């Protein structure tokens, strides 16, 4: 059994890291433990759990601002925000379905991994909502950056840097977030039977319209029929108006469905959490690409193996489940993405696969050098989640 540290506050957290550095003990940072499969497979001397550093520090609904300690669960945050008709605009994906994991996802981990959902295309990602951080670097120093205001250009923006750094630059103790109001009403406009090419063009047109689509996804094999799904939101009458306008713009004789209420919510939760691939342990890839490249990339992926795919972000995000635990397939995915631009992450794979395959796409040499030197400055002894992101010569 690994040693587990569970500091009760930021000061104790800093002490533990200071001591870990002097004793050269490597730490795996853990929030709710629902995403332990995300990142390179690593072994550390101990686990550092943030579960006791939890609670809302400040919530100002009239300023659309929330400050929460890193170990606060998303469940608690969502419950609080809902009471005031607000939400996290980036609508983070819940990984429990694809990892078959349990526990409660925490805000610190979501920020550390820059987890967003389908609203990313309009509302921005976790990194866009993040306006302030407090963290402990690998030397045990407490560092703050940003604050709790939406506009801030005071010094270098380490806030964004911390988002998506997977704990390799420091352990977040507190985060400040910009919020959004929950729309009064939302519904789905679903167009059935489109090809991928057609769906990409439909979604592109929808996002190129002034009707503020908050979700655009293509599910090729949903109940034997391809579905192009658009989420429409707004004030009640506005939703009617937008639905009418979008139908006129996009639907040319195809069969459509309108979903509202529970079924609508379930659909978008399923898209966000990639539930299409929940009952499986097969390798699952996440490709961030230029939306119009989706058909060509999809075509090439299908040549590697019988890949199953769904498309979010109007085609800019492909979730591809491959058939086999095979590092040659991983190389093939990376080879494809190289031709088009963008990047591919192996989100789900066995420990063995993730031991031999870079989970994150290797960076351009000069960029990798920059990243590596930043890591060196923030965590000079390399004790925080060593190897988790790779690219730092630690593997």
């Amino acid at each position: 059994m690994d040693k587990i540290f569970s500091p009760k506050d930021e000061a104790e957290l800093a002490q533990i890291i200071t001591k870990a550095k002097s004793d050269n003990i490597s730490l795996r940072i853990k929030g709710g433990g629902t995403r332990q499969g995300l990142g390179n497979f690593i072994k550390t001397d101990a686990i550092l759990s943030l579960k006791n550093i939890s609670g809302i520090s400040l919530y100002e609904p009239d300023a659309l601002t929330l400050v929460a300690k890193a170990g606060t669960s998303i469940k608690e945050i969502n419950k609080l925000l809902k009471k005031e008709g607000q939400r996290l605009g980036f609508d983070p994906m819940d990984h429990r379905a694809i990892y078959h994991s349990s526990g409660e996802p925490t805000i610190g981990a979501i920020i550390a991994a820059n987890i967003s959902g389908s609203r990313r295309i309009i509302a921005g990602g976790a990194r866009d909502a993040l306006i302030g951080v407090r963290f402990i670097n690998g030397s045990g120093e407490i560092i703050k950056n940003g604050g709790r205001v939406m506009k801030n250009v005071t010094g270098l923006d380490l806030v964004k840097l911390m988002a998506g750094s997977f704990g390799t630059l420091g352990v977040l103790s507190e985060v400040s977030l910009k919020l959004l109001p929950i729309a009064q009403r939302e519904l789905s406009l679903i167009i059935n039977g489109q090809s991928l090419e057609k769906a990409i063009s439909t979604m592109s047109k929808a996002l190129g319209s002034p009707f503020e689509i908050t979700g655009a996804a293509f599910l090729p094999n949903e109940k034997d029929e391809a579905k192009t799904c658009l989420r429409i939101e707004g004030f009640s009458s506005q939703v009617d108006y937008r639905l009418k306008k979008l139908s006129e713009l996009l639907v040319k004789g195809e069969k459509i469905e309108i979903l509202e209420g529970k079924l609508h919510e379930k659909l978008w939760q399923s898209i966000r959490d990639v539930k299409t691939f929940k009952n499986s342990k097969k390798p699952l890839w996440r490709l961030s690409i230029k939306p119009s490249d989706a058909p060509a990339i999809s075509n090439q992926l299908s040549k590697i193996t019988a890949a199953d795919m769904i498309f979010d972000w109007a085609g800019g995000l492909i979730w591809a489940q491959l058939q086999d635990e095979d590092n040659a397939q991983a190389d093939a995915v990376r080879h494809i993405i190289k031709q088009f631009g963008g990047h591919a992450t192996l989100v789900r794979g066995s420990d063995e696969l993730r031991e031999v395959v870079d989970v994150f796409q290797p960076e351009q040499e000069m960029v990798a050098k920059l990243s590596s030197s930043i890591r060196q400055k923030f965590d000079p002894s390399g004790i925080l989640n060593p190897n988790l992101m790779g690219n730092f010569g630690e593997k």
Partner: protein
Amino acid sequence: MSTIVMPEPDQSILDRSSEIIAALKEILPHDAVIFEKSETLAYECDALVAYRCSPLAVVLPRNTQEVSAIMKTCLRLGVPVVPRGSGTSLAGGALPTKDSIILGTNRLTKVLEIDTDNRFIKVQTGVTNLSVTGAVEGDGFFYAPDPSSQLACAIAGNIAMNSGGAHCLKYGVTTNNLMGVTMVLADGEIVEIGGAHLDALGYDLLGLICGSEGQLGIVTEAYLRILAKPEGARPVLIGYDDPRTAGTCVADIIKAGILPVAIEYMDRLTIVATDKFSGAGYPDVEALLIVEVEGSDEEIDYQLNKIIKIANKLNPAELRQSNSEEESALIWKGRKSAFGAVGQIADYICLDGTVPVSQLAYVLGEIGDLSKKYDLQVANVFHAGDGNMHPLILYNANDPVELEKAEHLGADILRTCVEVGGCLTGEHGVGIEKRELMTSQYSNEDMEMQMSVKDCFDPNWLLNPAKVYPLELSESRRQNLKMGAK
């Protein structure tokens, strides 16, 4: 005497002026190197005009390769480089020193790619903010960040200062709209980060670069996110006799779940000044709000009705709706000319401390008290929805004593912003203006961490070295350049 000092120029660089200019001329077309005093005059200052200095030379490259060659040469010769967009910085971000060269983006003006299907535009970074929207509006798109200098300011400067504007309550600032860059590092290496896809790979270096005030590299090309233009927009004007009530009104609107594209605030001094200047016909009130919403006519009506209901509960002294484009333009006319109008009364220092929206009324009160204490007038005109204040401190630029007094007043106002949970600068940047105030917001460890990031990108502190961090704190790092120079 003013309170902001710049480091003494390095005599060993000045002694080599002709050698340095010759080296630059060797790698660039002859018209890309400017060094005659009469021609470098235009580059002596940015919009913080109280501070001027002529640079050793100005270089105006036309592409990434030329920028790379310049950086290699400057590193070899140990010459600091001050990047400059259009020079509209209000914080002295583009102020040169005698021993530095200015690298201007003025000639990097190509639009490289427009892709409305994938909703981005790729440009060279010398293009102006407004021309980006200009390039795509025919297709029904726009580029969201809209700093008030948008007619002149360059995308390079927008990225360097993470510029915002009136509409960022809804659309965010530059960092939320930048998808990728081509950047030249201090040693001339060219890196590409991000692109036409969302969420760049690895550490969020794009996020770091945005707002780095030209200290990490020279961004030569950028992928910018473009958005579909809304069907329409319409403002409502609301006046109150008390700033506090105006503050409450802003909070109530946001709390009601409405997200206006803009909520602008003007105080009495600004109202009087702008009215004289622009003839907008603003009412005689203590606090004036302009709230703008977007959508179809029906959508706008719905939102405005909600806003008006909220505003009416607080007994406004004046409430004006717009019934036509002309009336909308009239409502905005005064606000858009506010800075120019205040400039007609006196010279001013424009600050942009940002505070939590809940603290707006309190901070306005404090500014009023400080204004009396220093016996200098302060006009307030700002983006209320996001707490980004713009106190304009009125003073006489020909009186050095008054400049110093104005700067002290400004420092006190900014400290107040930080004390209530805000920050020194929301969108103008630190530059030289707020450099020494950084200690009020950040500990030495905080700044050490930030400076260590600059060390990774620019180990010799070649790029814009005397900016952002207190001179004393950056001293040893700035010495690196002298030690490293051959």
